[in-house]
């Protein structure tokens, strides 16, 4: 990206002042190298977001910003309904509430190493992954409605988890304000066979070792220590979320002119928060969030079943569950005034600081865990939200490494079977139905997640707590 027009505020903060149709500046949180590595489209998309009605303070780009659709991935923006603010289906994306959850195991690397292959096979056999896989749970229409209203709480009520899991999930496992009546029959149909499935692409289930601790006190309070084994799950709202995104994006793109919104890019499709379609989308999107929370809760249950079979002494309490494609109504202090705003996080993780009332008591003193997904063969991270992050980015941080190479190029550059062999030499077992899928998700196709996390840490968005390395990867 050409950074000439940007004003440098600090090593990891840059500003593009509002000009032309922009209603707010763009603020980038990234160091020079990360910024220069971003596509020019990231700047263009962040500027487009800054032109939307009712935007408050700035259009933000996280250190993992990359070219998305409408919003950049790694984009954060807040809108005020009292100022004509909008909700954007493009600003949430197709995979509503895609996110990461991390489970502790109580095991050490030495416990898992001897049974790693057996564990990989059992997880691959029992957690549906990849195109054409179907879940073990079929929902009729009334159960589907109950799931869309209840989220992970619904799943726990049916025996797929515990009350403690809910305390460690954003929204306490159940997104308020979901309106399943605004989720179409097509979206429900698309989800019929997909409850408890990982999906495909960059979605995965990984068994990971804690390789390094950066904040011993926080790590202690999160019950993680070096050489511990954890399990991370990355997936979202599956076909239901994709269909909600598809339908509302089209409707909002077509209706934008009627609402007097001049869309610089139709993919930014949005509607006033107080419009009929805006309200309907919020209700459907929140139901989509519940679908993602329920989905990850069911996969958690399947994972626990596998561990109880292969490693019976394991217990798998939830460390935390974060979502990184959402629009949420939150209270924030802006220029000394408390305001209710709608925060879009597109490929960005909520990262509330210490003392936030949304956090359960055990986390209130330390802040919200922020889970940064890696990709097969690369490291993942646990960070913690900061007080200053609340003012810097509405309590938001990065969500992953971000691609540096298109699927198109990755497919030409790598062979899946060779990658799997190379990763096996490094002690990482990969299970996948598709060798081409493995090639497209090659570790080398992603940016250096460490550079992204270091930048987020220096910028004050979130602090590094622990680095995780993969041992087993079940590719979606």
């Amino acid at each position: 990206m050409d950074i000439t027009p940007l004003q440098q505020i600090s090593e990891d903060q840059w500003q593009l002042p509002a000009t032309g149709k922009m209603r707010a500046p763009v603020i980038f949180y990234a160091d020079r190298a990360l910024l220069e590595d971003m596509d020019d489209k990231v700047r263009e998309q962040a500027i487009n977001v800054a032109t939307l009605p009712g935007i408050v303070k700035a259009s933000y780009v996280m250190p993992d910003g990359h070219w998305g659709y409408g919003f950049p991935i790694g984009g954060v923006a807040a809108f005020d309904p009292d100022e004509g603010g909008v909700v954007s289906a493009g600003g949430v994306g197709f995979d509503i509430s895609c996110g990461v959850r991390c489970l502790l195991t109580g095991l050490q690397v030495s416990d898992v190493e001897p049974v790693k292959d057996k564990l990989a096979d059992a997880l691959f056999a029992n957690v549906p992954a990849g195109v054409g896989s179907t879940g073990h749970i079929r929902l009729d229409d009334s159960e589907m409605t109950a799931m869309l209203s209840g989220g992970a709480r619904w799943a726990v009520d049916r025996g797929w988890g515990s009350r403690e899991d809910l305390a460690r999930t954003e929204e306490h496992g159940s997104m308020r304000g979901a309106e399943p009546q605004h989720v179409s029959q097509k979206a429900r149909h698309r989800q019929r066979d997909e409850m408890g499935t990982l999906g495909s692409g960059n979605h995965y289930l990984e068994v990971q070792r804690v390789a390094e601790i950066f904040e011993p006190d926080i790590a202690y309070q999160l019950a993680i220590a070096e050489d511990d084994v954890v399990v991370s799950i990355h997936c979202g709202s599956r076909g239901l979320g994709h269909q909600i995104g598809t339908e509302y994006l089209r409707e909002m793109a077509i209706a934008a002119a009627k609402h007097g919104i001049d869309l610089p890019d139709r993919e930014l499709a949005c509607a006033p928060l107080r419009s009929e379609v805006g309200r309907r989308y919020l209700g459907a999107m929140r139901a989509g969030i519940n679908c993602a929370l329920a989905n990850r809760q069911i996969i958690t249950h399947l994972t626990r079943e596998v561990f109880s079979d292969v490693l019976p002494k394991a217990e798998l309490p939830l460390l935390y569950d974060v979502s990184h494609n959402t629009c949420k109504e939150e209270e924030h202090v802006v220029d000394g005034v408390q305001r209710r705003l709608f925060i879009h996080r597109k490929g960005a993780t909520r990262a509330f600081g210490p003392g936030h009332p949304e956090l359960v008591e055990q986390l209130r003193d330390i802040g919200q865990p922020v889970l940064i997904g890696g990709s097969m063969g690369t490291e993942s991270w646990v960070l913690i939200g900061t007080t200053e992050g609340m003012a810097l980015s509405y309590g938001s941080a990065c969500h992953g490494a971000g691609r540096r190479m298109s699927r198109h190029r990755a497919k030409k550059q790598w062979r899946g079977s060779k990658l799997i062999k190379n990763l096996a030499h490094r002690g990482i077992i990969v299970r996948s139905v598709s060798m081409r899928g493995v090639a497209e998700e090659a570790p080398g196709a992603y940016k250096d997640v460490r550079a992204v996390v270091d930048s987020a840490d220096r910028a004050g968005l979130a602090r590094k707590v622990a680095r995780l390395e993969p041992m087993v990867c079940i590719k979606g």
Partner: protein
Amino acid sequence: MASWEHFPHEADIGVRGRGESIAVAFEQAALALTAVVTEPHLIRNAEQVQITCEAPSLDVLLVDWLNAVIYEMTTRSMVFGLFQVTIDGLRLTGKASGEPVDRKRHEPVVEPKGATFTELRVSRDGEGQWVVQCVVDV
């Protein structure tokens, strides 16, 4: 000449179809969509699915068409290797031919989530060929 290709997008993938008529270009774009999932030549075109859609403009019709194909792929767990499209004004009638996903034979790579308005174009090139394209979220 009818053809399809992928074009790069940083996070996802672009699908492009070309043809002497707009209908052929739409068919080719759908083949490009299939090729995101598996190699089209691996598919036995044994079963047919009818698809119709209508939109306020030709480019939205392309998004609707590809999304309709995605919907049929995911809800029927099928892949399609042949498409036949008729376009009458802003109304599309299509037939997708394919078979249920065979994970061993097709080795499906990734499931498309939706066709987007990003890089969306329906236009004619300098030689009069129709070129239709958009980015697909995967």
